[in-house]
Structure formats: structure tokens, C-alpha cells
């Protein structure tokens, strides 16, 4: 029996008297994609940033690969964030250095873990740009010269170049037009399958999680109201809120 890569128990975050997220527990196994859905303000982004260590957590436990994440020193946690973990922001501008070339953006993460050979760094960068379908002749261009969809793919390349095992994604397809979104979904599915990535993806787009996530957690007012197999939660929702959420989607 394999053990979970990430194990979360009773995670709680308060903003003063208000609840960010409360008593969240789940296990994530290698190669698994977990979707988190809910309306704005449901606590899904708070949960993600607590998990990724971008915010402090008030209560609960996070175990990653047998290590207690919340008890780790800041240095160790940052190292984890640079190597084993990756975080894809909704807005690529938050995850990229806009003043540095595309190749530099990808190479920087490699240098942060000790790569020093310029030729090798450039080769890996070219290779990853190719994997996210960015032409090699754009390697010296800055992200400011890229479209939104290209920026998002560049952000993914920058994140995946260090071969992380766990990727956090906050609305990675939000703000992209649908044809670009489809391309990105295809890319993400392929990467998950080929690299065995574990992913936690926060989104409000139910169509995206249906195609990408194995399992789904539905959040409302900071709490998980329902979780299960993605298609089961969407096709046979048990909780009143999930039923409302699913039946409120407009069919295209």
C-alpha cells in the first residue's frame, strides 16, 4: 500500500473572528489530482496558500512525505518550495519575473537549486519551453511580450523545471480564453500522467475539474461540505450546496 504524499488534518485558519478555512482534512497520493471548488470567499484560496506555506496556519497538521511541514524551519520550507513543490498563480505576473527573459525565468529556478552550467541551464530551459509549446526562438523575449496564455504556459515551465512532486495551482485557467484554456488542460493532463505529479488545483470552473481532477472537495464558508470522486460529486451531489452549485452552471 502506498502512503500519501501529503496528509492534512484539521487545518484551520482564522482572520480575526472570521473563518478563513476550518477543520480541513484530506490525503493526497502520488499522481493524484485534487480539485477544490467553491464560490468566491469559500476559503479555497486561503486553504491553498496555507498548504503552500504562503500564510501561517492556526491549527492542524500538514505532513509531506513523512515530514511535519508546520514544524519545519523557514529555511527548510523555502527549500521545499523551490524544489519539491511548485505554485502556479492565477495571474502569471505573480509567478514570473516580468523583467527577465523567458529562458531566464525558467533557468532561475534551476540556479536556485544549484545549477551553474550556463549551457545546461539554457538547454533545459529550451526543452521546457518546447514542452509547453513556446517556440525556441522566443527564449530571449521577456514575458511582457507574450500573450496571457503564453505567460501562463511559461509560468508552468518555470515551475516544473525542477521536477517538483507536488504542484499547487490557483485558478490556472482563469482569465484565459477558451481555446487557450483547452490547450492548457491538455498540457496539464499530459504532464500529470507522464511525470506522475500530484496536484492541488483551486478553481471555480466545474468543467475544468471534471477533465483534470481525480477527486473533488467542495468548500463553503471555509468548510469542506462534500468530497469524493470528481464525476460522482458533480453527477450525484449529496450536499445542498453542491447541488445548487452544479445546477447553477450554464451549459454552453
Amino acid at each position, binding site marked *: 500500500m502506498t502512503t500519501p504524499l501529503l496528509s492534512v488534518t484539521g487545518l484551520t485558519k482564522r482572520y480575526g473572528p472570521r473563518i478563513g478555512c476550518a477543520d480541513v482534512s484530506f490525503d493526497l*497520493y502520488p499522481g*493524484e489530482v485534487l480539485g477544490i471548488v467553491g464560490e468566491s470567499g469559500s476559503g479555497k484560496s486561503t486553504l491553498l496558500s496555507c498548504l503552500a506555506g504562503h500564510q501561517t496556519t492556526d491549527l492542524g497538521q500538514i505532513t509531506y512525505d513523512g515530514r511535519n511541514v508546520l514544524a519545519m524551519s523557514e529555511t527548510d520550507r523555502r527549500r521545499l518550495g523551490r524544489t519539491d513543490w511548485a505554485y502556479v498563480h492565477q495571474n502569471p505576473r505573480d509567478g514570473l519575473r516580468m523583467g527577465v527573459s523567458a529562458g531566464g525565468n525558467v533557468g532561475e529556478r534551476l540556479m536556485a537549486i544549484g545549477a551553474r552550467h550556463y549551457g545546461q541551464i539554457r538547454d533545459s530551459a529550451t526543452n521546457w519551453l518546447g514542452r509547453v509549446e513556446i517556440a525556441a526562438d522566443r527564449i530571449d523575449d521577456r514575458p511582457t511580450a507574450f500573450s496571457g496564455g503564453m505567460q501562463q504556459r511559461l509560468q508552468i515551465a518555470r515551475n516544473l523545471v525542477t521536477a517538483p512532486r507536488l504542484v499547487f495551482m490557483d485558478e490556472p485557467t482563469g482569465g484565459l480564453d*477558451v*481555446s487557450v484554456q*483547452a*490547450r492548457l*488542460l*491538455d498540457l496539464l*493532463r499530459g504532464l500529470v*500522467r507522464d511525470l506522475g505529479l500530484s496536484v492541488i488545483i483551486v478553481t471555480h470552473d466545474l468543467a475544468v475539474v*471534471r*477533465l483534470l481532477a*481525480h*477527486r473533488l472537495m467542495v468548500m463553503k464558508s471555509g468548510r469542506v461540505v462534500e468530497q*469524493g*470522486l470528481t*464525476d*460522482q460529486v458533480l*453527477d*450525484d451531489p*449529496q*450536499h*445542498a450546496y453542491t*447541488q*445548487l452549485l452544479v*445546477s447553477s452552471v450554464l451549459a454552453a
Partner: protein
Amino acid sequence: MIRISNLSKDFILHNQGGTIIPVMAGADLTVAHGECVGLTGQSGSGKSTLIRMIYGNYLAAGGSILVGALDVATAAPRDIIALRRDTLGYVSQFLRVVPRVPTLDVVADPLLSLGVPAEQARHRAAELLTRLNIPQRLWSLSPTTFSGGEQQRVNIARGFAHPYPALLLDEPTASLDATNREVVLSLIEEAKARGAAILGIFHDEAARDRVCDRVVDVTGFTPKAAA
């Protein structure tokens, strides 16, 4: 291979005054290796619901659904995912795929998830698409733009790409012409011959008579109080 005992199901509509709709009670059914069982009953009698419960798409209210050694009614999501990958195939009436992905890759996808090398998976996909008369010029296009019958055949090719030990078929011959219907029926017969346990819904009576070893009327599983 598939063993269902005392299975029940209710739908609770929280946003419509908490209406409880009991749709199934005391369902018992078995499907052995190499056997094809057809589900019959009027529209709305719960044939598709039963198929979806076996696939883990709908939650069971009570009872058990054994597929091999796994009880789908109580299994953890990750065990159901593994079951769907290795053991239990499902041909639904609808094709749900990531837009933009070429048809050949859509069909090869179940094999790729099993770790079959890409070359071999695409070869198998090409073989099935050829048999199901999908012209080669369409293979590099996404099936989202295909006609209903073509999508149905892509769905079937996908469902038969891996030799699943158990298969669920929801109207696999609907919207197909005579030639393609014949291909699908022979695919089902071949699957039976290699020992697959098949449970299907066939509105096409001639098809049902030909491939099914017996039929089960799901009307018998309808809760008495609601009737």
C-alpha cells in the same frame, strides 16, 4: 465478476424542498466472466442509474456492489480510480474529452494511463478506429466536432482499447448504421470470448438477443412504495 446485493438508491433534492425520490431498493444481480447480461425496463426505470452506480458515478444508499474484490459502494475514491483504470470499462452515451486533443490520442488515452508505451497505444487505437470506420483523415482532429454517430464510435473505440475484465455498456449500438452496429456487436462477442463480464443496456432488441446470455428487468428493483 460483478455481484450486486440488496442495493438501494435515493435521490434527495435539497433545493426542491428536500424531496426524497427512492429509485432503487433490494437490487440483486450477478454477471459472471464471459457472460453478457442485458438490462431491460422502461425509460426511467433505473437502468442507467444502476450502471452508473456500478461505475461509482452515483453513490449507493445501501447494499454492496462487488466488482472483482472491490465493493464500489464503500470503496475510497482512489480505489475506484484504480478499478476504472485496470478492471472496469464503461462506454457511456456521451463523449467527454478535453477539447483540441486528437481522436487518436483520445482513444489511446486509457492505455497511456496504464503505462502502455505511446507507440503501442496509438497502434491499438488506430486498429480500432479503422475497424469502426472512422476515416484516417479525422484521426488528427478533435472528436468534439464529429457527428453523433462518429462520437459514439470514438467512445466505443476508447472503451474497447484496453481488454477490461468487466465492461458496462450504455446503449452501445444507438445511432449507428448497420455496418458499424455489426462491428460493435462483434467487439462485444470478442470481449465475451476472452472472458469479460459485460452488463449492458440495449434498446435494439435484435442486438440484445444476439449478444446477451440473459436479461434482467430492473422494474423488479423499483421501490414498491413509490410505484
